[in-house]
């Protein structure tokens, strides 16, 4: 089966800073892959390159076999991207914002309305869907934003720290939503630094450090290779840091 996402040898430098170095990843339909890394490891840069909003210095990204550099529009139609930097318009209400993006993704009007109603119900947005996005709480904004990424039923969901800065209840909403999308056969690539989330959601985990993938595999494979009892220890070992914070 062709992977939905096939990223090969992605590299990106910002001046002297190497944000990504020869990163290769694949995600298949119905699979959740977690990108784990500390702050500044290059997670956002890699996800931006995969989403087609940042051109890599080297490497290529295929979305369902489509080269995103050659056919960006066709590839982007298959992606739902969410990150802390993808906000919604403050002076539009959540429903209007969803309608706007639905149209940009070419969702047919009747289907769009049905899909928005469906997402509003699934993510329990009824109480705030008519309010301007600028007046929503962080959790409400995050839900509306997740709805925007899910709206056009993309083959690949790219979620950059989707539960970041959310309370437990709001975070749980997002986690369950990701599980539902996986159950519907969508490929999900998401970055996080919350180990529990990765353990609960991911079929495979890629460990990232200083722009390089230091290991990737299923949770069991990572634990076996590292000889550690839990993901946190396996991750720290992989990036060369001991439990007390010292370098290994």
């Amino acid at each position, binding site marked *: 089966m062709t992977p939905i996402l096939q990223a090969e040898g992605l590299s990106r430098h*910002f001046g002297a800073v190497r944000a990504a170095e020869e990163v290769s990843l694949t995600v298949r339909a119905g699979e959740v892959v977690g990108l784990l890394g500390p702050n500044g490891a290059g997670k956002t840069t890699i996800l931006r390159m995969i989403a087609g*909003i940042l051109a890599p210095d080297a490497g290529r990204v295929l979305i369902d076999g489509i080269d995103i550099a050659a056919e960006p529009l066709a590839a*982007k139609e298959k992606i739902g991207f969410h990150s802390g930097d*993808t906000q919604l318009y403050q002076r539009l209400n959540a429903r209007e914002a969803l309608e706007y993006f639905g149209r940009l993704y070419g969702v047919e009007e009747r289907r769009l309305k049905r899909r928005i109603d469906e997402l509003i119900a699934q993510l329990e947005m009824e109480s705030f869907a008519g309010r301007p996005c600028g007046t929503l709480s962080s959790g409400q904004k995050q839900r509306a934003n997740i709805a*925007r990424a899910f709206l056009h039923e993309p083959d690949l969901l790219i979620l950059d720290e989707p539960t970041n800065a959310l309370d437990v209840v709001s975070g749980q909403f997002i986690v369950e939503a990701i599980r539902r999308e996986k159950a519907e056969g969508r490929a999900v690539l998401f970055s996080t630094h919350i180990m529990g989330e990765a353990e609960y959601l991911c079929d495979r985990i890629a460990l990232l450090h200083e722009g390089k993938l230091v290991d990737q595999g299923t949770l069991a494979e990572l634990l076996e290779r590292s000889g550690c009892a839990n993901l946190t220890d396996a991750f720290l070992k992989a990036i060369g840091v001991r439990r007390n914070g010292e370098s290994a």
Partner: protein
Amino acid sequence: MRPATVWIIFRKELLEALRDRRTIFMMIGLPILLYPLLMIGMSRLQEGQEAAQTARASRVAVWGELPAELEARLLKPGKMELLGWKGAPQGIRDGLKASRLDAPPTPPFDYDADDRPAKPPKLPDADWARAAQKAVLEREADAVVILWPRFEERMKGGDKAVASILYDSVRAESRKARDRVSDQLRLYRMDLQRERERQRGLPAGFALGVEIQSNNVASEQRKSGLLVGMLLPYMLILFSAMSGFYAAIDMTAGEKERGTMQTLLCAPVEALEIIGGKFLAVWSIAMIATVVNLLSLAMTFTRLKLLPGMEVSAPPSSYLVAFLMLIPISLMVNAVFLAVGAFAKDFKDGQNFLTPILMSLLAPLTVTMTPGIELNGYLAFVPVVNIALLIKGVFLGEWAADMLFLVLLSSLCYASIALVFAAHVFERNPVLLGGKEALSSVFDFSRRPGSRPTPGVSLLVFAAVLVLAFYGSLSLARFGLPVMLAVTQYGFFLAPVVLVIYLKGYDFTDTLNLRGLSWRGAAASVLIGVSAWTVAGGLLVRLLPPPESLQKAMERLLMLDDKPAPLWEAWLLVAITPALCEESLFRGLIMSGFRRLGKWPAILATGLLFGLAHASIYRLLPTLALGVVFGYTVWKTRSIVAGMICHALNNGLMATLARSKDLIEQMGLSGQKYVPWAIIAGGAVVLAAGLWLLKREGEDQAPTTA
């Protein structure tokens, strides 16, 4: 670029902007409130000031012996309080009383047409002058009148008596006092002259010699038009730009600040669609603001007397033309705002970036307030200045359709350059994401071998070449028509084409359609070349007949000056040279850029630019039609040679006809204002035959998408 996507983005941007109170205030609130408040306030203030000045008696110190008769005259209107020697130092008093002080010499005669000193005389370097200055500046008196020794005696003895008025031109009360004293002194002088003439038995007016009567022929509408023409462009352009200013920052830097730009960039939309939608929204806001500004100003001006006795009554057509002129300037300014706004990180940054641009509009706008500067050929291509002067001309009733066309054309050129720049900026995602390499990547015009020209490149080249050729040909006019034609064609049309193709790394053969021509293509080109003028020149000229001046200019061009040059020279410079140079530019580089839009959009867009390049509203339709036919010929034959044959034959035929009276008579064109219908019909048949041959000329070129 998909128009439907641009429309979606435009609607959303407009909706969001209209929910922004700041934008609404700048767009509608400010113009509705500002002009009436400003004008009524200024008018009331001026009226109030004038009323107060008129009601108040002027306080005038008189140094010297005041004759009783003059005193009575000064006091008669009841608006003067005479303060005697107030402020005069003892030394000055004594000097005047004892006739030790002399009147200053009469300044050299240097008066303007209204009998006012052309240059205000300098304050004499004397104690009396300094003392009077002190008295006026310290407000002991509004003005000081010095009656020089033996004033009355000299007057009565038939000699010249001298009076000096010292006043402060900055202070309104002082100016009023000067006016009142001066008026009475002039009346007094007039009566005195009459009395002297009567006493000596001289005819009335003997002393005056010549009476000069000067009458202003300007109607009230014209006088008020001058005022409106000075103010209106300034206010309209500035306020229309200001409303786009906030919207442009909000849609670029504001989006970055709020984190919504990235959301948009990950959607399946092209950068050009984003800029297209945003630009349309900003421009719509600016145009709404322009209409509101124009209406508000028109209402305010017509309801208000700006100056006593002066009512503004410009016809509605003036406001309509002013609106028309504001369209291209608004296109240009808002495109620059969007392009520059995209570099800003946040709203504050955006304000810092765009404020200098807004301010830079102010300097050229002051031309409308500078006397003596009128719209001419040179200024018609100076951005902002041309529009400001044309709007002023419209309100003075001084504008011609050709000049309007030229200003619109040049302004659209600058607007195109600004729009292409904005699109160029938006195509670079790192700029929109706020990357550090932003600025350098925008100005990366490096050579990319194998790439093809885009519609943006076509527009940019057209705009730049037109401005270059316009100023170039104006400066070359003194070298004579042949030199001007040759340098303009080869230097300003052909050379930039070759340079752009080389610098951008385009393929010369593909871009310029440098291919051979089949016998059918060649035959079609000849048929079209000899017949197209009959339809273009014969039929379309009837829709908008050119004025005689243009006909004469065309004749001069075809003759290569006032005296006819040899026919071979005319064919070389008027037919073959434009065929080589203009075809390389239009049917070569420019049409290549438009190729990706499809056959007819490319041919029509190229034809339109070709028509516009002839810089005359009267020549627009005929040259547009010729451009379309030439474009179709090149498209079908895939060879620039076809366009060159058509172009050379068309122009060469015109040059030959212009020289040959016999031929003109044989064709029945002698004394005809228009080409006779019989010739048009014959030409149409030949043209149709040429087009029929072309239709059989292989498959259409596949439009490129790369």
